[in-house]
């Protein structure tokens, strides 16, 4: 076990899977020489055929990954910023997501699309900072993974590559340089298993991606007053409802924190799914935190008004326990 950065954990997963299965290959814009660097260095071991720099053509990157996957390859396509995924949206929603269903399982699309999302003063503004994963939870046929630390990143990416379905794998930009313990040996983390990142008795705090770190810090700061259970679903599709419901039945209080805009976001979906089972266990109405229904503004001063922050999480928790 050694400490490494989230981006290094991703690279370990890619390297191990490329060694394990010759059908795995990576492609994306400038992946050998620019960007956040998950693929950096792979070309030295695997060569330019399996580590492919592409033209700036998101539809063709995603669509060709779909086609290659249909033919038995296991492409891992990188989209430089999740915002650019919208150019290839048809290829995900109308093509990749439909192949298994329309062919009654005769065809499969074992592909992964990796993309960074979110912000916390990354300076990208409206078209380089969005959190878009909620959109995809509404598309049957796609799996959706958003790991929050290096250990999960490696184990989940390996599962994603081995999965027979199209998997969207979203990484928060702030996470890339975060460090954590990552085993050097092979391990996978199954989809649909939430991680209880901290046990507690008074409040179930569901947090995703970069929000997990904030939530854990708040839980630590408030530990003398409130016992907070922090759960990271890790995969949104499939979603581990059972772990969340069990926790809420114990605590009677629920707060969901995710960087998606709240309108139509996954926060509401998680709350609804939980309330159907545990409404009568509640001590306080369920609450959600997300971005405002506002594009991400460039200015640092404005951005923090729009996105969820540690302070906003803390304030909401204190509100839940104010009465």
């Amino acid at each position: 076990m050694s400490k490494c950065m989230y981006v290094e954990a991703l690279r370990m997963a890619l390297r191990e899977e490329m060694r394990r299965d010759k059908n795995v290959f990576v492609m994306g814009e400038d992946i050998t020489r620019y960007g956040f660097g998950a693929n950096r260095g792979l070309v030295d071991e695997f060569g330019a055929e399996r580590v492919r720099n592409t033209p700036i053509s998101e539809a063709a990157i995603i669509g060709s990954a779909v086609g290659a996957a249909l033919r038995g390859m296991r492409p891992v396509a990188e989209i430089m910023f999740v915002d650019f995924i919208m150019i290839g949206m048809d290829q995900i929603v109308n093509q990749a997501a439909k192949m298994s269903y329309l062919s009654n399982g005769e065809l499969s699309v074992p592909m992964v699309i990796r993309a960074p999302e979110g912000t916390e003063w990354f300076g990208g503004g409206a078209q380089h900072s969005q959190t878009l994963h909620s959109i995809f939870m509404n598309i049957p046929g796609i799996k959706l993974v958003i790991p929050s630390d290096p250990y999960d990143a490696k184990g989940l990416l390996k599962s994603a590559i081995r999965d027979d379905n199209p998997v969207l794998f979203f990484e928060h930009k702030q996470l890339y340089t975060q460090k954590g313990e990552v085993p050097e040996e092979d391990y996978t983390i199954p989809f649909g298993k939430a991680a209880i990142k901290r046990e507690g008795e008074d409040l179930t705090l569901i947090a995703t991606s970069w929000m997990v770190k904030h939530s854990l810090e708040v839980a630590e700061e408030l530990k003398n007053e409130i016992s907070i259970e922090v759960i990271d679903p890790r995969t949104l599709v499939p979603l581990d409802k059972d772990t969340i419901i069990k926790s809420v039945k114990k605590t009677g209080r629920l707060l969901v924190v995710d960087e998606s805009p709240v309108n139509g976001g996954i926060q509401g979906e998680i709350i609804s799914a939980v309330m159907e089972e545990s409404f009568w266990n509640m001590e306080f109405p369920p609450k959600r935190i997300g971005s405002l229904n506002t594009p991400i503004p460039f200015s640092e001063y404005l951005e923090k008004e729009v996105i969820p922050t540690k302070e906003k999480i803390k304030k909401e928790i204190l509100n839940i326990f104010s009465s």
Partner: protein
Amino acid sequence: MTISKDKKIRMFKTMSRIRTFEDRLQKIYRDGKLDGHLHTSHGQEAIATGVIEALSDQDIVFSNHRGHGHFLARGTSPRSIIAECYGKVTGTNKGRSGSMYIVDTKRVMPVASGIVGGNICVATGSALASHLKKDNAVTISFFGDGATNIGFFHESLNMASLWNLPIVYICENNQYGEATKREEHQKIEKISDRASAYSMPGVTIDGTDLMTVYESVKKVVDRAREGGGPALLECVVYRLRGHSAGDVGPYRPKKEEDEWNIKYDPIKKFKEELLEQKILNNQLVEEIEGEIEKEIEEAVNFALDSDAPIAETVSKYVYREEEDNE
């Protein structure tokens, strides 16, 4: 290129089968006995037939919303497509597709795309897989003139050319994108001219002439298979019917339709050729047409008699799970 007599007769049968099949289906829709979207390929039968005949069994074919002909030419049974249009469990997709998203994995034809140009990127990826696996297969992407205006076309042809992928892009230029005449949706005279932007061969041919299609496709497919890279083949035809079953084409000049129907019906043309070459005679034609009529009639009855899909299975295979591999 010498083509055997038997092969010519087989190709004539294929074209006739496509026509009879689509005539019959169109009638069923127009009589109000079936709902849904139905796009027939009247006038384009020589393309489907010539292209498929020029391929080997391992080659991959990506079809589109106007795709019955592609499937029938490759050997998908008329009864399974008609049953699909009726939403029955015996259909190609067990009722999940209807006419537009047919799949036939046995004939290496993945799901056809109902999104105009939607298969162009996916087909390019299939060629990328062949390139990586070195499996010697060539991929075909079928699309219409309308699809050449969508970004997928540009992104894919650029990528395929850059990576020298084994793919042939077949543009079935039927001169109408839905109800818009080609001159109103693009200014270029020849769609194949666009190939020069990607440094790949671009050829425009008479898509109503079966032998021309067959020979032209063979050339570019062989070239792709030998590592020569992609090509764009524009087959000029005329959509002899409307965009979809209910469309009688009020936006088209009657004179234009009549002229194409009389002069450029690919089946009529090929039949006359074969009669002239004494490969066919009137009696043989009658026999062939009679057999096909009977086959299609039986296909319709088969579809009508088939069971509906089981409701409980409706959400199966949204995802492929490990147990599906067993």
